[in-house]
């Protein structure tokens, strides 16, 4: 069990700074998710922590020890790649045994550990098979078992769910979380899928252009985004953003509701919503339209849960509102979160 820390960590490829000065410190035993779009630097960051990439600047610490000059095998970490990187020419058993053989662990001890790891992941019945005979989910479990046997101080996972089909992904996500809870090892998990991040992380570090945009619990990230990038990247459909009085104002689709539903006492801000289209999706309704008072052409999305039964007609103007406490303000120039301001002159 150890804490992973990076100090002013930087990695440049030619002129391009993939990781541009990152300070990070995990809690012991936490499940930290590195979330961001492709190219944001999250994988590069993970690889530097693993020792597969040498930092251009800065330090990586594992267990309070600077490990910059140590190769992966000396860092007592385990890593699961997106492809699972199972050794195709070895059986499942041999795959799991591989790290133990590298350590020179004796045969009996190996057997014990393999059985323990296989039992934990429910793959005892697969030990004699080869990777090509396994399904995606099974391969993932083998990769996890292999990572587990070494009893590492840190688990590093690089988008391990993206190769699974959608149905399997949700199930696998649950299994992963359960697995980490049981084993209790500090885990750093890279993904571009914000649903995954929200579901798995104790804390999420949102990355973009090689920098940490915000780090916090899923609640913090979602309800108090530090800048417009985080605000629009997390949450689907994304937050509605408008320019108003020299700043940016935003509100999430689920907070844009018919006026009657928003209690007056919450400091309700009214909007006249010109409805273009309503999508009925079973559990939700999505209303697409514009709010001319805020912007003549920018699309607005409202998400109505099925509990809100107010009828909304297409090609009509509806009276909607947002509770003042659900408005978020950002600086127009920098995109950083800024102080709330009163919004005047709307919905008349």
């Amino acid at each position, binding site marked *: 069990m150890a804490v992973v820390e990076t100090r002013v960590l930087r990695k440049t490829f030619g002129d391009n700074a993939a990781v541009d000065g990152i300070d990070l410190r995990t809690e012991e035993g936490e499940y930290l998710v590195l979330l961001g779009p492709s190219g944001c630097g999250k994988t590069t960051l993970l690889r530097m922590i*693993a*020792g*597969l990439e040498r930092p251009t600047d800065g330090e990586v610490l594992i267990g309070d020890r600077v490990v910059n000059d140590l*190769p*992966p*095998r000396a860092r007592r*970490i*385990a*890593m699961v*790649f*997106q*492809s699972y*990187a199972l*050794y*195709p*020419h070895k059986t499942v058993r041999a795959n799991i045994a*591989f*790290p133990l053989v*590298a*350590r020179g662990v004796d045969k009996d001890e190996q057997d014990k550990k393999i059985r323990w790891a296989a039992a934990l992941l429910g793959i005892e019945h697969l030990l004699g098979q080869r990777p090509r005979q396994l399904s995606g989910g099974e391969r993932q479990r083998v990769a996890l078992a*292999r990572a587990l046997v*070494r009893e590492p101080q840190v688990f590093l996972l690089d988008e391990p769910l993206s190769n699974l089909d959608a149905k399997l992904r949700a199930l696998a996500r649950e299994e992963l979380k359960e697995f980490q809870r049981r084993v209790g090892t500090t885990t750093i998990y890279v993904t571009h899928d914000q649903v995954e991040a929200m579901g798995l992380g104790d804390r999420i570090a949102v990355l973009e252009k090689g920098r940490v945009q915000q780090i916090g619990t899923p609640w913090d990230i979602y309800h108090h985004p530090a800048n417009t990038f985080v605000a629009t990247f997390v949450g689907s459909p994304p937050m509605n953003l408008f320019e108003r009085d020299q700043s940016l104002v935003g509100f999430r689709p689920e907070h844009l509701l018919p006026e009657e539903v928003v209690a007056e006492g919450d400091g309700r801000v009214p909007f006249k919503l010109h409805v273009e289209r309503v999508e009925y999706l079973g559990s939700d309704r999505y209303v697409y339209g514009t709010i001319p008072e805020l912007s003549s052409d920018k699309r607005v999305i409202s998400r109505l849960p099925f509990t809100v039964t107010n009828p909304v007609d297409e090609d009509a103007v509806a009276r909607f509102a947002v509770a003042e406490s659900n408005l978020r303000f950002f600086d127009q120039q920098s995109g950083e979160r800024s102080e709330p301001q009163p919004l005047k002159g709307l919905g008349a």
Partner: protein
Amino acid sequence: MARTAGRQLGSRTAVYTVVGLFGLFASFPFLWAIVTMFKADPDLYTAGSNPFLYNKPPTLEHIRLLFQQTPYLTFVRNTVMIGVLVVLITLAFSLPAAYALARLTGHWGGRLGIAIFLVYLVPPTLLFIPLSRMVASMRLQDSIWSLVLVYPTFTIPLSTWLLSGFFKSIPRDIEEQAQVDGYSRLQAVTRTVLPLIVPGILTVVVFAFTLSMHEFIYALAFVASSDHMTISVGVPTNLVRGDVFFWQSLMASAVIVAVPVALAYNFFLDRFVQGFTMGAVKG
């Protein structure tokens, strides 16, 4: 419907004809050699008789002669020895180089790869004169060691190119996983990647061996005595006695060499092409 069938039939016939003609053209010298091999002297050396028929019964006499009364077996032994040694040297040099080219170099790696490949195109007919002097000054002239020393100059470039292609076809994940799992880079490669490119290594072995077997110029320039000659040089120069050619034995010697090599090539050709084109893929 009938017209397309007819066209199909017509194109089928065309294909068979073309392939048949080319096949004949390509193999005719060997077919003729095979026929000749078994011909008795009076039959062969009679002008006017049908060369394609055995007018006198076929005989194994000349093959026996080849093996018992000429240095042919010595040539074969030398060729095999040289071939094996050259393959080993080639692998020793080009495996690490190919790995470095495939994994460890940035964009200068691509250029270096092409540079190494271009070395293959530098002809022996340009280098053989200074090389013959170098060989003489190292006192290796007229020995098979001169060839063992020099042959890798053309096997290494090609092998490096091929092997780098095979290395590139294995995802990096596997060796990185092995490094995380506890191995040094070298151990990671030997334990996880090398087993996966065994077909590629075999391909390189076959091609390096045959390249060394085919070589003529250096062998002719460096080796004079028949004890040390290879098949490629020994057969055209040494199996010629005065101006009477032992044609049947000569043809036998050619066929014995040509057929197994052709079979081996055929098996490995697809892999060769695969490795060759993979060698050109970036990164």
